[in-house]
């Protein structure tokens, strides 16, 4: 961090100013002139919070994608299918047992199993052939999409939010001050905050596991040079299977999350595949902190864009990607 400031003082200054303005916009009571210019603060705050929670969801999808890519150089274009599969499994479990928590566990286990099967049956046979692996994942995504359309039809599904998470809560953020001088606080759905907190916890746990444990050390070494790692006697194939299972399982969990606060339907797989592509291109391939930063940026851009410039929202996301590619082709937080 400090090295970044020393190296790029101008960029650091711009970033600090942008963050300061954002914080002021969130915490301060807006003067009337500003409300006239860009609309009510409640709308803005809602967009920001939606963006951050959407970023949390994107992080869950993209972190598995980037983890698999970082270690195995496998661009898993079937990742969106794993997301949708997890969502459908979660829906089935929650509809039959009524337990939201159980649906997470089962979705994680089943998608992780699919991941293990993919790695053992398919990708192990074509190790080191990046392009061929990517083609295979494209073929798999077509097959999966059609199988899921066959099994679940084209309907929209939404996973039932558990009763203890329904309803909004007041956040200590003032959206406006009434004429009587009484402050109005932001009300926000509890379930989204819980999901955001959960994705932050998962992110931190992943970071700790990667940086503080032995298996994390092995994975980081594998990202740097898997041949040398294999030569030192690590059972690299086992590590590959575990990482693929974990990354796929994360996509499954994300499917349940997405099914709870959005909906599940054919086509969502492509949407989330695109989201994870853009997130890892922006954040940096193979980097977990990069996925977090990218997810936050893309989530915010998408939500703020859809509120303030509705017909061009997707262009904002795309322009961010173009900007990052021109300034820093390897992604914001990639090491190389």
């Amino acid at each position: 961090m400090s090295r970044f400031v020393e190296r790029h003082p101008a960029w650091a200054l711009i970033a600090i100013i942008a963050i300061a303005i954002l914080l002021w916009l969130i915490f301060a009571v807006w003067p009337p002139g500003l409300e006239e210019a860009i609309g009510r603060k409640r709308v803005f705050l809602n967009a920001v919070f939606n963006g951050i929670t959407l970023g949390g969801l994107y992080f869950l999808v993209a972190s598995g994608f980037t983890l698999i890519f970082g270690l195995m150089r496998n661009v898993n274009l079937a990742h969106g299918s794993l997301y949708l599969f997890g969502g459908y499994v979660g829906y089935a479990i929650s509809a039959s047992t009524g337990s939201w928590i159980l649906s997470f566990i089962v979705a994680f286990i089943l998608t992780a199993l699919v991941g293990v099967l993919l790695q053992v049956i398919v990708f192990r046979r074509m190790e080191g052939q990046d392009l061929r692996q990517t083609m295979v994942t494209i073929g798999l995504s077509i097959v999966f999409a059609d199988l899921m359309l066959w099994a679940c039809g084209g309907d929209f599904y939404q996973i039932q939010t558990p009763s203890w998470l329904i309803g909004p809560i007041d956040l200590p953020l003032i959206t406006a001050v009434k004429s009587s001088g009484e402050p109005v606080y932001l009300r926000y759905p509890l379930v989204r905050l819980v999901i955001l907190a959960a994705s932050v916890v998962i992110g931190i746990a992943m970071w700790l596991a990667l940086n503080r444990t032995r298996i994390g050390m092995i994975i980081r070494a594998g990202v740097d040079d898997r041949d040398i790692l294999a030569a030192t006697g690590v059972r690299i194939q086992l590590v590959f299977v575990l990482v693929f299972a974990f990354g796929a399982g994360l996509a499954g969990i994300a499917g349940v999350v997405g099914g709870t606060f959005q909906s599940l339907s054919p086509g969502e797989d492509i949407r989330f595949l695109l989201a994870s592509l853009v997130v890892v291109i922006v954040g940096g391939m193979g980097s977990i902190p990069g996925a977090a930063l990218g997810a936050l940026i893309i989530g915010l851009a998408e939500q703020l864009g859809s509120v303030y410039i509705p017909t061009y929202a997707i262009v904002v996301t795309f322009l961010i990607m173009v900007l990052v590619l021109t300034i820093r082709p390897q992604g914001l937080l990639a090491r190389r």
Partner: protein
Amino acid sequence: MSLAHDAPIAVRPAAGTQRPARTWPEINNPAAWIVAAVLVIMPLIANGFFLIEIFATTLILGIMALSLMFLAGYGGMVSLMQLTIAGFSAYMIAVFGVSGNANISLGWPWWLAVPMALALATAFGTLGGALAVRTEGIYTIMITLAIGAAFYYFTNQNWAIFNGHTGINTVATPHFWGVNWRADIPFYYVVLAVAALCYVAVEYLSRAPFGLALQGVRDNPRRMAALGFNVNAHRVAAYAFASFVAALAGVLQVWNYRQISPGSVSVSACIDVLIIAVVGGITRPIGPFIGALIFVLLRTFALDFLVRLGLDGNRFRLLIGLGFLAIVFWSSDGVIGLWLRWRQHQGRDVSRPGGGHRHG
């Protein structure tokens, strides 16, 4: 790190090693002449349905896949945005030309709208390519897929230019010299002429200095840079050429269906172009056309075929996906590779294993 040396894995048995320096390869190949003759007299054989729905559609999809084959086979860059470029050019025809949506279309005559659409689509594709060449290998797939998906969502959201998810309907087709060029037989010949032109151009370019330099860049960019070639400029130029080819296909496509909507530029359609090219084989320009023929035949007849076998007729995409997987698993060179292997297996005394060539 450089991924480029991994990139053309599907491409390895490509030019250079297998084909020695040739002048005009098909000139004394009877099979090519027969196929060309059959294609020319096709209107005598086939009725309107087969002529347009099967052969013209095959040729149009083949041109799109040909542009991908040029990039992937000679440049080592697998671009998933070729259909997006074609779709962009189709949209531009609809926007600048005459269509049922008078509030959007500017109503230019076709001879103004077509060059405009071609120029804009080529510029669009070149810009996208300039973006994609900043990274290498599999990253190219990701970036071009992201561009394609972004364009699809944009056309869905934007009503001012692209008319949202309904798209633009009843696009006018050219009438001049007293001929309705969208009538079945003239349209077939227009498509055939464009396809033959693109095929010859790609064949020629692959042996021109530019194409040879491009293949050098594919095989070893570092060495080519050391030899004084501007690697990125060659790649961007390849994108520009491929974009022009794809844009031509887009013009033909919008004339064929007379409408364009986001569904035509969806992500799965982008991937279809890749499937066509890979199934046909991305080492020779004829591959995309063979792949397109297989794809169109499957798409048209899979329903009847599956129902006749007692299966669900809607599982066409499953069939396509499984076929694609099988090809990727067993043949790195698509159907052509299978054919060549079979030929070599049949008789090793056959001196030229290139008999599978057809003239597009």
